[in-house]
């Protein structure tokens, strides 16, 4: 499992290829990518992502470790950026590798659900006329519940 928290940009294609070629027994690789999107008014200038360095990697490791106990996962990759990002830039990616696609898809979704509300990142949107901390949604928390059944 590879967990990286970084300020620099990364290249989705390169990361995915490297990840996919690591194991010979994984027939399925699923990737998810989070991208900075503009608001409806088209006024987003940048997004600032703050994190809690001492806690971030620990939290991500524990989420990925749990995914490994739930699915036949051969490998997982999480790359999450922090700092100042512009519209269209890649914020983060998750990749999962498993023998079959069901495990890879479900594990990727699980990782995303937990990453959203259990990994210590906070997003701030800077638009041409104001700045706002992105609020967590009730649905984010609700999404975690379905995995505990």
């Amino acid at each position, binding site marked *: 499992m590879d967990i990286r928290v970084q300020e620099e940009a990364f290249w989705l294609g390169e990361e995915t290829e490297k990840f996919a070629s690591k194991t010979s027994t994984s027939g399925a690789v699923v990737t998810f990518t989070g991208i900075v999107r503009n608001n409806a008014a088209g006024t987003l200038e940048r997004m600032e992502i703050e994190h809690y360095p001492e806690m971030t990697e620990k939290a991500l490791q524990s989420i990925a470790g749990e995914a490994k106990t739930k699915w036949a996962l051969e490998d997982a990759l999480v790359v999450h950026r922090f700092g100042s990002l512009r519209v269209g830039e890649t914020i983060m990616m998750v990749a999962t590798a498993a023998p079959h696609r069901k495990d890879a898809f479900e594990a990727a979704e699980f990782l995303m659900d937990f990453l959203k509300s259990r990994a210590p990142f*906070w997003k701030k949107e800077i638009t041409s006329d104001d700045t706002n901390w992105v609020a967590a949604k009730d649905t984010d928390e609700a999404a975690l519940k379905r995995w505990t059944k």
Partner: protein
Amino acid sequence: MDVLYFAWVRERIGLPREVVETTARTVADLVTELSAREERYAAAFADVSALRVALDQELSSFDAPLAGVREVAFFPPMTGG
């Protein structure tokens, strides 16, 4: 102990971290103590249901004891991904 603040909690209080000398037994006691200091703390802690707390980098709760804890962090619900 070290007390850390993130996102709008950090902005409202006006600093990212500080060393706090306290005899507070629980997180809630520490919040009461900090809130009594100055208006900016009271404003940040006005509604703790809007906040989360981590003790030594593990998510915890406001009724958790502080015995043996070295680092307390207060922040709004996380928005990763």
